[in-house]
């Protein structure tokens, strides 16, 4: 069991390294196509003018492909890390911040990789992959005792429900990360000033479709959470801060879904709401740092 836990940790190390390189490659792909060229002209009178031009040349496709390949490495290594840990603990390993964040790295990477394949655009990677990397780095800042496999406290021993509740949350958060990235690119490119970015229509579609997965997932998180709360604490809703911050996130995305059919709201304002939604997601995720209450386990 000790060996499995260690091996899992090494796999996660490999996943973090490939994720870091992948993030660099994606960022390079998205921004490094700008080439600055300086031309010096000398007039017959001997005056020298220097003209600086920015060119958006093609030529870093390779970086994008490299980023994708490394991202798939991350997916495989993170999957191995989770699998080995699951074998060691004899349960689905998503019960403390260490395990939860590891699962997020895996899910966000996998979901983004799938979006990339479907839409054939790599630019979102420059935002999503660094977010996943941030989460991987966060895992490294967690106290080392969380890396050990512990038995669960009685309130968490409801395996099926816990697995479903927590994995819906992870999937929801991963899709919200992708919709956040699409919203950011949408805001940058809504006037089509950046020729090499995907069209605003496509970005809008990616953002919306991600939310159409994330929103039902977040609803499921709330529903399964209530069922679990009902079984463990005797009440399905107790206005616990973690519950209400998830409800806040849910309401923000509910507003987003309604604005899409409203003139004057769709487009820019919808995209801004998505940014707000992701901020709420992060707030809910790290809520354990701010809140006491019933969700105050997870080791932080």
């Amino acid at each position: 069991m000790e060996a499995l836990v260690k091996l899992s940790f090494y796999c996660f190390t490999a996943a973090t390294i490939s994720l870091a390189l992948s993030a660099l490659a994606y960022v390079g792909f998205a921004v490094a196509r700008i080439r600055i060229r300086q031309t010096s002209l000398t007039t017959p009178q001997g005056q020298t003018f220097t003209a600086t031009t920015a060119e958006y040349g093609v030529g870093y496709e390779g970086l994008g492909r490299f980023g994708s390949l490394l991202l798939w490495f991350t997916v495989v290594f993170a999957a191995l890390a989770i699998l080995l840990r699951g074998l060691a603990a004899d349960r689905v390993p998503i019960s403390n911040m260490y395990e939860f964040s590891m699962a997020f790295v895996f899910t966000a990477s996998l979901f983004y990789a799938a979006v990339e394949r479907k839409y054939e655009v790599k630019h979102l990677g420059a935002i999503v992959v660094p977010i996943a990397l941030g989460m991987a780095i966060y895992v490294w800042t967690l106290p080392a005792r969380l890396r050990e496999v512990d038995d669960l406290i009685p309130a968490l021993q409801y395996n099926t429900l816990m697995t479903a509740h927590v994995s819906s949350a992870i999937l929801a958060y991963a899709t919200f990360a992708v919709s956040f990235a699409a919203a950011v690119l949408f805001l940058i490119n809504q006037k089509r000033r950046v020729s090499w970015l995907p069209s605003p229509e496509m970005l809008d579609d990616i953002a919306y479709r991600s939310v159409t997965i994330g929103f039902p997932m977040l609803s499921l998180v709330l529903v399964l959470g209530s069922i679990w709360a009902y079984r463990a604490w005797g009440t399905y809703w107790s206005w616990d801060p973690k519950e209400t911050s998830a409800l806040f996130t849910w309401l923000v995305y509910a507003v987003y879904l309604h604005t899409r059919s409203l003139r004057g709201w769709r487009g820019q304002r919808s995209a801004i709401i998505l940014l707000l939604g992701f901020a709420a997601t992060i707030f809910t995720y790290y809520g354990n740092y701010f809140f006491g209450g019933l969700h105050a386990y997870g080791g932080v």
Partner: protein
Amino acid sequence: MAELTIPQTMTPKRHPGEIAIDRVWRFFCSVRAAVWEVSVLAVMVLIGTLRGSSVPNTIGELLPFTQPLVDRWYAYDIFKSLPFAGLLALLSIAIAVCTINRVPGIWSSITDPTVVTSRGFIASADVSATITPATGADDVTGLLRAHLKARRYRVVEQELNGDTHLYADKNRFGKLGTFPFHLALIMVLVGGIVGARYGFRDDEFIVAEGSTEQLLNGTSLSVRLEDFQDSYNPLGAPMEYRSDLVLYDGDEEVKRQSITVNNPMTYDSVVFYQTSFGPAVSLIVTDLSGTVVYDGTVPLGRYTAKENPDAPAGVLDLPNIGQRLIVVGPDANPAIDPEKDTLGLLSGELHLQLRDTTTAGTAPAQTGTVAVGDGATIGGYTVTFVRDRQWTMLQVASNPGIPIFWAAAFMMIGGLGIVFYFPHRRIRGIVSSASGPQEIQLAALAKRDWSAKRSFEQLIEDIDRELPVTTRITRRDGDARERPAALVSA
């Protein structure tokens, strides 16, 4: 443009009341209003959420002048406030009105869609296509129909002035998913109200091992604790708390179950949850003639005695003999504050105090010490300390709103699934008359739906590949720039 004057008689005068009702109705139906209502609700939820965190404190420290506001923030439970309840009520009404308003239109678009369209409509659509067949139009329409059927589209056709108008849609029932979802939101609130109005709960229902306690909710239910077990892993972390319960309705045993933290016992709508536990002692009290006046278990730890505030104490009222017995156990950590311990009990000993409750505290208490397995005689009674036992604390709740809540949860998730994963897709088209130039014009109703446009283009590309036709796809939205605006092949 021709001028048009509408005679006064054609605009019937409306009653001001009617206009007002109309306005209110439209307010409740408005998506714009809903967006604002949900936004305000979100802000309220955020205020309530932050109240449970250190964030307002941080704000108060950074901006000292906001301190009074921060204090009010912590004092104010927005979730139990009138504005919050009012907004929920407003939203419920809006959902109900909106549903009533939308059902007929959506239903008729499902059962009886408008088939006839116009060339102008097709020309102005975001994405449209013109197919010019090399042979006859029939081959193309046949293939088009086959492709649409294969993609699970319903195809409706109608002849008009020699042209065939075509309407195809799929997932037409998908639009209905919005209704169960939104109604579920109302049901969640109804469930909450029903639970609060008709339910009861007791968060600290204590039963000691070997004793039976009556529920204080007006029912005839009582619970007996046969055994309690707490187990720990080698590191001392709790593994399981288990209570073996027997439930009686009157004198009749109706249920027997072991409950743990996540496995409560349910009987009718009453649920028993494991919440806490503590030490207890099993005692027998007899009078001088040997008659047993008490045989049961007394929970310790729910009280403290001034003789040693660190030690668990319990109170046993014996109204039949007019006495109150106070039981104090030994200090679990004698090293902490030893000066407060005036009893100095050893493990396995109990300190007893017997007070006459009929004299209202004027008589001094009779005291004594008893060891486990022994008896001690105080104040004319013999108290036998039979053995150490435990008590369990249960949360007992009855919530008749729960079935409503479960139904709502099911409708909510199901409704969302239908709305999002079975999107309504529509295509309109005109097959021009046999006499004129043969041409099939099609348009997708796919405003702001990139994926629907994509799938429409794929349909046209499939037809183009399989038949000798000339197709032209036109996109009028911004995306046209990125993809080839017109796809022409021979």
